[in-house]
């Protein structure tokens, strides 16, 4: 099939050209943003550490975690993605209500486990541009467990550098929340308003 060969060769050359262009053209711009991505994760980690060592009560810490999440993560994008297909039918008001509820839910869910971080630390090792986003690779050293890898996916598509996913030893927060929110919605017969109301207690 000569046609196939032709197509694939053409595709290959096109890919090569695009690849070379990517290598040469926006180099300095990309490097700048890799640093931004790294800085974002560095500040996030520093803030997590200071919240944990603040000695506040649990309620105070959870409030701080919510502020941190709102400041460093692209919450509207994460929330919409976690909602999955239901986001398509949702009204604007529902979507913003869900985003707000989701922000509190995520902060409580992960913030409640701050005890596991006491005495631990996260070190940023590497940051790089991958396709349309940036990946910051870090290692978490927690007491009582071997060091493990935490990857942060960062994008500036919202207008500034914010993270939109965290991957711990291959386990993807966004995928996990899609499953969870999907199941919560199913339990309520697909009633998004009920889910939004209930999420305050989750």
């Amino acid at each position: 099939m000569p046609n196939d060969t032709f197509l694939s060769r053409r595709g290959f050359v096109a890919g090569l050209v695009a690849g070379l262009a990517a290598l040469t053209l926006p180099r300095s711009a990309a490097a700048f943003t890799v640093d931004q991505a790294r800085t974002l994760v560095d500040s996030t980690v520093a803030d997590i550490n200071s919240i944990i060592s603040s000695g506040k009560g649990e309620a105070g810490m959870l409030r701080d975690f919510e502020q941190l999440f709102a400041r460093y993560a692209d919450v509207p994008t994460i929330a919409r993605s976690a909602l999955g297909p239901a986001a398509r039918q949702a009204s604007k008001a529902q979507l913003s209500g869900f985003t707000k509820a989701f922000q509190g839910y995520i902060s409580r869910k992960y913030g409640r486990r701050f005890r596991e971080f006491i005495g631990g630390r996260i070190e940023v090792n590497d940051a790089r541009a991958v396709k349309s986003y940036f990946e910051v690779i870090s290692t978490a050293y927690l007491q009582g467990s071997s060091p493990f890898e935490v990857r942060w996916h960062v994008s500036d598509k919202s207008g500034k550098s914010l993270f939109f996913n965290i991957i711990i030893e291959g386990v993807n927060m966004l995928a996990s929340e899609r499953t969870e929110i999907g199941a919560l919605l199913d339990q309520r017969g697909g009633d998004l308003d009920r889910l939004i109301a209930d999420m305050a207690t989750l």
Partner: protein
Amino acid sequence: MGLKISFMTAGGVRISALAATVFSLAACAGAPGPDGINDPYEDTNRNVHAFNRGLDRALVGPASKGYGSVVPEPVQRVVGNVAGTLDLPGDIANNLLQFRIGDAAQNTLRLAVNLTMGVGGVFDASTAIGLPGKPTDFGETLHVWGVGEGVYVELPFAGPSTARDTVGIAVDVALNPVRLALPEREAAAATVMKLFSRLGDRDRFSETVESILYDSADSYAQARLLYLQNRRFELGQDAAAADGAADDGFIDPYEDPYAE
């Protein structure tokens, strides 16, 4: 299909026959869906999951809490160290079957150090001197030989797995060098040691385990996702590090199919 093991001994041939069976099982069971999950036996698996959850709630969870609070931490650490050292001969065998000679050497050195400086495996002297373990299993060996993961299964007692990893567990148990080498009573003691070590793990990671089993809306789906993602990460780690690719697990929420 990458099963170039004809030069192996009779045991190897038996394993390769087994591997070939798994491979064909994996091949005919259909490809994973767009979400990367291949779970045609979901109904059965969900029943097993309900059983495992009940078992954890009634027995394993409370037993691990009892173990964690009654047994002093230094003793727990010793149990973990001995269990880890007992795993090493099996790890080394698998390292060799995977042609990962460096890993095999490191685990062998680890075994030697822990048996001597670590007083028969009581102390993990190797990790202290910067020689961490390279744990593996026969499921990984099958992966290295080119066997696909096959369908998702949740096993009674053992929990989330795949067709390939289930065969891996069976082979690791049946051909465990420690169990084959030790007299019956010592082999039984080794098994008990491992069970206690597992209880210790369940206790140490209780927050994670319980958040999945009891706090999530669909604990079956969460456990399945977690297992598959983490297992693929474990197995793909070397390849990903080698070619610098890192887009596994990447979801682009900015080009969301659900967006308006």
